[in-house]
């Protein structure tokens, strides 16, 4: 049952995907989307799921997040099977996931209803500061830029102190400058709090900049083509030989696969 | 199959509740559903059903078509020329809340009892919302599309024909459907006060000439059904493939 080369003990395993398969039915036909995905993720790891648009990465994340039942295979977290969404594992969508009828601080405090008022206020304040949105607490999302909305969403997720974060192309709708800034901030937060992170993207550079491991998916039906270890310590020099080689190798891998 | 049963269950529940209420409630003039049903058959048998139905439809058609023919150019004008909108806009807004029924006394006075008054009222009632829909629709056309049109050298007329009208179409059809609903509502009301035939008249006449409440309710049921059919008819238009682009938003729903 263990994937090849996996010798670490059970305790060092946060997430385990076993032979995950998802097939949709559309107009009478069976459409295979995911085909036999198996993967383990250690606690505190930053894993990028990389693949071209439409290959099923989001479906994979939805299954892992408990929003979709797989057709076959299973998802286990901390040894227990995932049957539905859970506040210990929070999704971060593109900034459209922010609730437009709540202010920034109300959004961030959205999941904290069970806490006593003082504690909630304190926590919200802490995460507003963490993502650099001081001064904008009372602003509504439609008054904020895309990048700021994204920060609200990240802060909202973090305020729940989740074990795991699932990010589905969170920076896709932002300009490249904001993207780079937010990547850096995400890493900063991760290094401080060390959640286990699954980050879906179609951007090769982004994946190599961020992840400990990059899981490269094929076109539909998605299978794991390769898992690339990125053993470069942060902060990563984007002009270093190591970085460029890794990037090029992934590029080549995908490029070859798409040659007609 | 299950879906069909489910969709009929609401109506069935309504009819059953109606029946029970009349049967076991305080004494009332309201008829049992069965009596209303028989009344409909009676109307069909002596030809009145067809006669009144045609009378109502005739008036609706005239008033509505006139409204459509006028609302389009007026709405376009108001939408394309902001000065026009600023001048006449507030009036239309002022006239809008005034029930067409309030105009009935005036209409009867000028045009007498008869089809003309009814058609005039229907026209008024449908014209306003339609013109406003067209006007708003024109404003909603994304500036980008207009820029592309001008870039490609289209003159004003062509711009309207090739860019604005097609972009307007989905909203226009929704507006047409709503205006038709209003027209149907109003024709019945107008007939109750201003003419001597039609489904609306049927209701009033049935009550006045002998408290035939079974005919009254039969008339109501018929009005509801015809209105439903008209509405469904226009909804088919909304589904034309030429208009699908307006609904291709995705991402919503459970």
């Amino acid at each position, binding site marked *: 049952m263990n994937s090849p080369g996996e010798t670490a003990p059970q305790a060092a395993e946060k997430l385990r995907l076993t032979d995950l398969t998802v097939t949709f039915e559309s107009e009478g036909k069976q459409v295979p989307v995911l085909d036999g995905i198996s993967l383990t993720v250690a606690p505190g790891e930053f894993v990028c799921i990389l693949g071209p648009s439409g290959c099923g990465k989001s479906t994979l994340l939805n299954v892992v997040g408990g929003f979709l039942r797989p057709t076959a295979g299973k998802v286990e977290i901390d040894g227990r099977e995932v049957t539905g969404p859970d506040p210990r594992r929070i999704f971060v969508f593109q900034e459209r996931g922010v609730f437009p009828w709540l202010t920034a601080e109300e959004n961030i405090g959205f999941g904290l209803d069970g806490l006593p008022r003082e504690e909630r206020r304190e926590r919200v304040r802490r995460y507003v500061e963490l993502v650099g949105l001081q001064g904008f607490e009372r602003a509504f999302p439609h008054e904020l830029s895309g990048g700021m909305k994204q920060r609200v969403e990240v802060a909202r997720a973090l305020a729940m102190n989740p074990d795991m974060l699932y990010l589905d192309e969170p920076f896709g709708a932002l300009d490249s400058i904001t993207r780079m800034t937010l990547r850096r901030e995400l890493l900063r937060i991760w290094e401080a709090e060390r959640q286990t992170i699954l980050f879906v993207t179609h951007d090769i550079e982004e994946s190599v900049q961020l992840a400990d491991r990059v899981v490269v998916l094929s076109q539909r039906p998605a299978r794991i083509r390769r898992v690339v270890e990125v053993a470069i310590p942060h902060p990563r020099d984007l002009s270093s030989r190591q970085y460029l080689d890794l990037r090029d190798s992934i590029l080549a891998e995908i490029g070859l696969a798409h040659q007609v | 199959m299950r879906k069909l049963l489910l969709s009929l269950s609401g109506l069935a529940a309504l009819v059953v509740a109606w029946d029970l209420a009349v049967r076991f409630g305080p004494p009332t003039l309201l008829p049992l559903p069965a009596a209303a049903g028989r009344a409909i058959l009676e109307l069909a048998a002596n030809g009145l059903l067809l006669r009144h139905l045609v009378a109502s439809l005739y008036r609706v058609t005239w008033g509505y078509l006139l409204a459509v023919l006028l609302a389009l150019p007026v709405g376009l004008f108001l939408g394309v020329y902001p000065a026009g909108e600023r001048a006449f806009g507030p009036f239309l807004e002022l006239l809008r809340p005034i029930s067409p029924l309030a105009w009935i006394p005036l209409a009867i006075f000028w045009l007498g009892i008869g089809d003309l008054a009814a058609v005039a009222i229907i026209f008024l009632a449908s014209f306003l919302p339609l013109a406003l829909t067209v006007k708003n629709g024109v404003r909603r056309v994304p500036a980008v599309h207009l820029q592309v049109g001008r870039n490609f050298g289209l003159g004003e007329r062509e711009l309207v024909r090739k860019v604005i009208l097609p972009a307007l179409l989905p909203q226009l059809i929704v507006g047409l459907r709503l205006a038709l609903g209003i027209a149907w509502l109003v024709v019945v009301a107008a007939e109750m006060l201003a003419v001597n035939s039609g489904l609306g008249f049927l209701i009033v006449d049935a009550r006045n000439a002998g408290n035939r409440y079974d005919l009254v309710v039969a008339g*109501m049921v018929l009005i509801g059904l015809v209105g439903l059919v008209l509405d469904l008819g226009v909804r088919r238009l909304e589904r034309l493939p030429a208009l699908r682009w307006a609904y291709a938003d995705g991402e919503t729903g459970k």
Partner: protein
Amino acid sequence: MRAPKDRGAVLLPLLTAVVLLGLWQIAVVLTHTKVFPPPWAVARALGELARKGVLLSYIGDSLFRVASGYLLALAMGIPLGLAMGWYAGVALAMNPVVQVLRPISPLAWIPVSIVLFGVSNLATIFLIFLAAICPIVVATMNGVRSVPRMYLQAGRNFGLRPAAVLARVVLPAALPQILVGLRIALGISWLVVVAAEMIAVDSGLGYLIIDSRNAGKRYDLVLAAIFLIGVIGLALDLLTRRIERMPRVRWGFRTD
């Protein structure tokens, strides 16, 4: 977007108003009509109503009936619309009922409502209730249906139970559309109160129209009443539009 908002927006309609009033006056004079009143006669009629003390009380009566019927429709319509938007089964069952009842003009309900409630305020309130509930139900249902799936997922992700998802996510997200329905329903209610009062009550603006004509062909009063109806209807509409501008719902009305 329009450019100069202030002067132009007031001056132009004012100008057109003056022109139209002028044309009206001229038409009355030219045609020597004995029955259609000129503008100033209508203004005088308004003054007469005020002096007799009925102006405010008629307006108040009409507004009271609208408020009652409307609030009832709100209280029943929003929960029904929520249920229809949330549970496909409820929508399937109730949609045909709504679609069949909708085309029946409130006026057509008059005989039935008189049978049910007699000639009274209750009958008019019933009519208004009937007229207002349809747009409210439809708008609420559509609002619920068009809540983006992402919001629902986020709600579940944060551990909210279905009831909490409905209250804290679906309702606020659907609110802009619900408000539009409420505004339309208010407009319709105002439209219908006039028709409803034509039944047989003895006060209100609709009553004024019918009574003025019957009891003496006072078309100046008729037009005065029509004018008041238009103005109040407009005011109600503007009021509800203000509500749509509040920050909690404004996001739903932006044209991007």
